[in-house]
């Protein structure tokens, strides 16, 4: 367990270090701090959205050691020593990732609020399954709700990205 300090009310605060988008960050946090709040509040990585806060909508999806997870269901202390990739971390400098490019080309987003999570879930799928079937794409994003697009253009974008990989 990481080291901690105790405040005047007897509440413990833990020092954790995690790698986010390639850089190490050390933060002192309470045990009940959620990963989504740490990313948004402390690191200003606002691309990770806060929606339902119950693990239903998927708009806070990030990659934890390469696998997609809901950042609203993870305690930040559990991410000590681990690698997080958020939407801000998937492009290569100025160059967008192929998934981002295909979302743009196919208009795979409208209001954009689910988009970061949707792109992360798609990336996580393609990392493991570079040639997914349409069903596999739908299954991979089934935990990401989008009220605008009916998923039609999102599925097209992900399948097209797989073709170009």
């Amino acid at each position, binding site marked *: 367990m990481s080291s901690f300090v105790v405040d005047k009310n007897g509440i413990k605060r833990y020092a954790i270090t995690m790698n986010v988008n390639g850089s190490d960050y050390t933060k002192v946090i309470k045990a009940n701090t959620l990963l989504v709040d740490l990313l*948004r509040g402390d690191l*200003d*990585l*606002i*691309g*990770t*959205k*806060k*929606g*339902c*806060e*119950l693990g*239903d*909508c998927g*708009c806070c999806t990030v990659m934890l050691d390469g696998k997609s997870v809901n950042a609203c269901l993870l305690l930040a202390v559990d991410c000590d020593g681990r690698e997080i990739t*958020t*939407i*801000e971390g998937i*492009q290569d400098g100025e160059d*967008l990732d192929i998934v*981002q490019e295909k*979302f*743009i*080309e*196919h*208009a795979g*987003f*409208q*209001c*954009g*609020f*689910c*988009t*970061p999570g949707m*792109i992360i879930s798609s990336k996580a799928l393609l990392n493991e399954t570079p040639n997914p079937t349409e069903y596999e*794409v*739908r*299954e991979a*994003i*089934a*935990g*990401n*709700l*989008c*009220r*605008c*697009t*009916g*998923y*039609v*253009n*999102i*599925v097209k974008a992900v399948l097209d990205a797989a073709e170009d990989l």
Partner: protein
Amino acid sequence: MKQDYSYVGHSVDRNDSYAKTTGHAQYTADLKFPGMLYGKLIRSTIAHGRIKSIDTSEAEKLNGVKAIITAKDVPSMKYGLSPARFDENIFCIDKVRYNGDKIGAVCAVDEETVYKALKLIKVEYEELPAVFTWQDAAKEGAPQIFDEYPNNLNTEIHHHFGDCDAALKDAHYVRTDKFQGQRTYHAFIENHCSTAYWDGDRAFLYSSCQSVHYVQYHLCRVLGMKMGNLTVRQTNVGAGFGGKLDPTGLDFTAVILSKITGQPVKMWYDHNETFLNGRGRHPITMELTTGVDKNGKILAHKFDAVLEGGAYTGLGIASSYYAGSLLGVLYEIENYKFDCRRFVTNLPPCGAQRGHGQPQPRFAFEHHIDLVGEAIGVDPIEMRLVNARKGNSITTAGYEVKSYNLVGANKMARDASGWTDKKGKLPVGRGIGVGNGGFVTGAGFCQYRTDYPHSIGMVKIFDDGSKAYVYSNAVDIGQGSDTVLMQMAAEAMGYPYERCQMITGDTDLSTLDFGAYASRQTLMAGWAVKRAAAEVKKKILAKACEMLRASGRVKEGYGYLDGPLTPEDLDCVEGIVFIKQEPAVKLTFEEVARKYFVDHGVLLGRGWYHPGKLGGNHKGAAVGTSPAYSSATQVAEVQVDMETGQIECVDTWDVHDSGTIINPKLFHGQVHGAFYMGVGETIWEEVKFDMKTGKLLNGNFSEYRLPTALDMPPVESLTLDDSYEPNGPYGLKEVGEGATTPTMGAVANAIYDAMGVSMTELPITYEKVWRALRDKKASGK
């Protein structure tokens, strides 16, 4: 009519593509200001009662709490949509009217402290009996929710055109059916959020809303502020679908609390609270009676609707009118009677949701007309072709309809779906169904009485000509209005689209627009920016003419120029100004704009739009008037598991009569999303309450069941090539809401075709289907 355009009709990428795919796009909840406080509303925990006392003393002692306010601390002026039904206060003054009603607000240094403080606030009530259904609300001696609505009757509408009773007497066949809709919710993913701060006597409010203008108007009216002293701003909005149109308690309290504390205040809803804020679709109880001749031509139609409104009126008054006002646009019905009542109940208020008031009545009518057709032996699409409105006509209610090709939409949908080979020929459990719909392209009237234009546009060319700023407070809630407005502006001034920039979401910096509702922006803000851009082009051509004449490059008085060069001899396309008869003689827009700046200062174009006086003289005619009406046909094919009742929507087709399509890629996206919401409401979605306490039961996405990517069928979105609307800029009309209206009918009809039992209650859940099949089996039919 159609021309070759540089940008109109092209699938250009959205202007927010980079921001939204990289996570850089900011939404209201992403904003941070130095010293910002966090706040939430104090909510009622009972459905109906008098507030006896509110004890905030314990909460005030909590370290980090900065302010707690209740009704005594805020103005008591009521607000709403229609002045006759202004019935909502910032906070409840004497009574709470639903479980979750607004009692006060708390702000503190961080979110955790806010939640702790909320738990320490004690509200004592004198509990009153409550009503949760319109049937209970309408009973003799029912608890009265508002003094101003005796018997809880909030609205009553009686429209009667022609003579229904006489026509029904002569009908070949008459049929009556009853239907029940359910309460649904917009279910955008971004929760409402409002953040405000003050600078001297000026307040600045960021709100995740659908109209910066209406938020500014309503807040200033209630708070007694000059509109020039309240700036309403907007970042990206995580969708709205009608649920971010009314001002929320967050908007008012962010402004008030930041004034009291002298610090920026962020007010936010968590997900459950967005459901408590409500304003989703009304459950409607409907009875339809139709008389037809032997060909299926409708001779008379009676529609009785009762809307269950929840606690306040808000946009619900418009929902009531919309429930009946557009049927006569869709079909030519000479004798039409519409009776409607809206009751208040002790539940969160209902309001506007995509297709406003219309989708459930469309479901009822579209299924009813299939049952009528079945009884007289007429195919469903034939029934619709016989009754469909034609263009250039006037409805029974007096609405003028220009372009309208519902006939073409039905025929195209029939051919694309293989209807003729499928209808009546599919195996048991498989079914195909059709539904029609459509919508207004902008409402004919503002939400409040004003003689303002409905939209103002402006274009400013940057000093050296390298950028065109397009001004409009039209709100891009995801539908892509910024992109299509810039496409139209770029087209109209002959300037590269890629170098246009939208200036929007700011009541100080940008120009008036009423916002995103009634599918109005592409047409209304479209006209405004198109006219502004055309004025810029006129100035550019005049300046270019002057420059060319001064340059000596033009041989005036010879050949095609028998006199001096005039601006009319020039055109400008994609940033190049040229002589139409001699395109090699040209200047760049940029150099002409720069010269204009040097000679005259800033290069501006201004435009406006007002729909003018639109038809209909009966009471309530305002709701339903529009400069242009879309129409649409959808066909759905479903598979019903005859053992379990599970429904799979297998394939769907949509043909939208939408005029000129400004951006096909975004257009089809609207159709997909509209169908998605419609199919969700048909099969899965329903907001539920405990019927003893009025407590919300499923204010989350695991129990309020949205379709996932695994549920969503493919949608083939088709358009009519010859569709052109003379009242729309470039011939356009709406798509976003109209495409939701046929869906419930199409899917319900397909389910009926598959299982042979008519399902008249929404949502048509697997369980209801299973029960209906079981009953059918038991009855031995």
